[in-house]
């Protein structure tokens, strides 16, 4: 088991290296020069050259990449030696004047809270509604769940977010000025909750609807399995059949699907962060792409998002193997 995790972790490491290289290559191949963006209106070729030197873009791409790796391992000096970021350094962002690692470490908790909160919400709503719908198939709880599925899947997420935001502000539930400023859950749980709840709902609602349908289908499919009939023939009660015999089988594929969908969540987080003014990775990344063309931040956010995704998938696979003894890892 440990050996398996070790192997997977190693493979994941290689994937991350490949992703960082690809990001560099894409950036390099784009016909935009970041040095001229930060140059301002009275731009001269000399200024651009100086900027390039400052940004570390005056050397061939492999040297740039080499510096990046070195920074990760032992730390490095940037901006012509004026700044030092200690290892693991993902680079230095000139437009924001910070070490990327420090910047991301600041923003990461916001995105993590957003993503995990939404994930928990969506899985809880989706699975419980799906289970209830399946249990009372064809009766009113099933019909209610079906209505939820239809609405949830047809709602445009960001519009819902805006509506929620406007509604909540008008009702004075949230303060538009402080909304989005980071408070840690342990220092101010209520503030934290208020900060995130509407963002969670916005982000979770569509997935919750999809997972309601998935869970319902899976539970119903499992209920026609022969081993469920066997349990019934043993005299097991209906609720126990559902909870012990059915769910373990029907939720296993859903959980592994959730691992994959979690990646998509990060994409959705970008828009949601913008709407709710949450200062997370998504916000930073958008600024970096659209305005400052800030390579170090882009590489950093890409890598963190990818690592997040890979780790999550590993967790899901391991969890799956605990559910299903047939794939139990030797």
């Amino acid at each position: 088991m440990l050996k398996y995790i070790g192997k997977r972790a190693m493979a994941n490491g290689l994937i991350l290296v490949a992703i960082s290289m690809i990001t560099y290559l894409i950036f390099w191949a784009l016909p935009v020069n970041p040095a001229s963006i930060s140059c301002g209106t009275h731009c001269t070729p000399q200024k651009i050259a100086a900027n390039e030197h400052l940004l570390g873009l005056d050397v061939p791409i492999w040297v740039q990449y080499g510096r990046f790796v070195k920074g990760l391992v032992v730390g490095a000096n940037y901006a012509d030696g004026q700044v030092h970021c200690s290892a693991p350094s993902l680079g230095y962002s000139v437009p924001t004047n910070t070490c990327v690692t420090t910047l991301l470490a600041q923003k990461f908790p916001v995105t993590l809270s957003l993503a995990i909160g939404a994930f928990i919400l969506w899985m809880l709503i989706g699975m419980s509604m799906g289970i209830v719908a399946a249990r009372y198939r064809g009766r009113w709880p099933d019909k209610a769940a079906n209505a939820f599925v239809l609405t949830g899947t047809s709602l445009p997420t960001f519009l819902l977010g805006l509506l929620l935001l406007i509604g909540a502000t008008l009702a004075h539930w949230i303060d538009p000025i402080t909304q989005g400023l980071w408070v840690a859950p342990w220092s101010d749980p209520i503030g934290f909750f208020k900060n995130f709840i509407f963002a969670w709902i916005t982000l979770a609602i569509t997935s919750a609807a999809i997972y309601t349908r998935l869970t319902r289908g899976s539970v119903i499919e499992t209920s026609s399995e022969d081993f469920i009939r066997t349990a019934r023939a043993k005299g097991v009660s209906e609720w126990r059949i559902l909870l012990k015999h059915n769910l373990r089988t029907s939720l296993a594929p859903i959980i592994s699907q959730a691992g994959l969908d979690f990646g998509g969540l990060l994409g959705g987080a970008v828009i949601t962060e913008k709407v709710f003014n949450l200062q997370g990775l998504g916000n930073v990344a958008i600024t970096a792409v659209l305005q400052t063309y800030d390579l170090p931040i882009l590489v950093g956010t890409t890598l963190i998002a990818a690592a997040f995704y890979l780790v999550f998938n590993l967790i899901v696979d391991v969890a799956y193997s605990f559910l299903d003894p047939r794939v139990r890892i030797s």
Partner: protein
Amino acid sequence: MSRLLEVKDLSVSFPTDAGVVRATQNLSFHLDRGETLAIVGESGSGKSVSSMAIMGLHNPGRTEISGEINLNFGENNLEVVSAPEEKIRAIRGKNVAMIFQDPMSSLHPYYSIGNQLTESWLIHNGGNLDSKTAKAKAWERAVEMLDLVGIPDAGRRVKEFPHQFSGGMRQRVMIALALINGPDLLIADEPTTALDVTVQAQILGLLKDMQKEFNMGVILITHDLGVVAEVSDRINVMYAGKLVEEGTVDDIFYRTSHPYTQGLLNSIPRVDSGVAEKLVAIPGQPPSLIALPKGCAFSPRCEYVRQVSSHDCKVEIPDSIEVASGHSRKCFLKETYLPAGKGR
């Protein structure tokens, strides 16, 4: 002493979009302790549906059931059709147990054999013990049962999962599961159909031994007449949801009285018949249960229709007639017994 099982006028039908499926109609039969009753018939003739009814396993919302199913266990009597779900659940797995056709899919893939065996014991016996003693007792009993059904090294294997067992072994586990509470009635629905002949021989032997051990009544559902000849005392022959002939094994095999039974017996090749003659097939297909033919359901395939002068087989429905004590059929023919075919 009253009978272990007495079924009276049992009809089960399923309303579907295409129409009402009349899966069984007016079945009446009985079973005593220590006796093996075989139910034979083509696919879709209602064998499984009637046995599921005895277990009370039909979904009440989507099934229409009428008639009576009287179970008599001495202290614990029950009429299944009208009984509330809790009452039926209390006897399911305790007094009445069932083995299914496919041992590959009938066990839960995620739980250990021991877990599945003990659950059954605990549901019916664990109530008045504290949980720790109950669990210990249940595991002891599980190992004992695996041993009894011939699984070597039961103490170790009880912790394994279904996928670690072969098909034959899983069917042994299913038998252990069915017998763990010492049932009075065992229903085996095609218990050996998915198994190889050599393994089938093992399992049939085991079932016979277990029947003696627990003095159970056994209902064996199968379409294999060889298996029937080997293990049963009495036989119910079903066609299109009806019981067309019933009698002892010898009645059915040597004093065949219904044309369908005769057709069935003639259409099977036998390993001991020596020369390969042409098989006598029953022409046509079994009817749809949604649109049953008028009159006798077998009439479109029956070669005797023209020999019946007293009635019109294609219009009138034959009633059950006793041709000898304990031997009855549903047919208008004048001849009581039909000649054996060429193969026999």
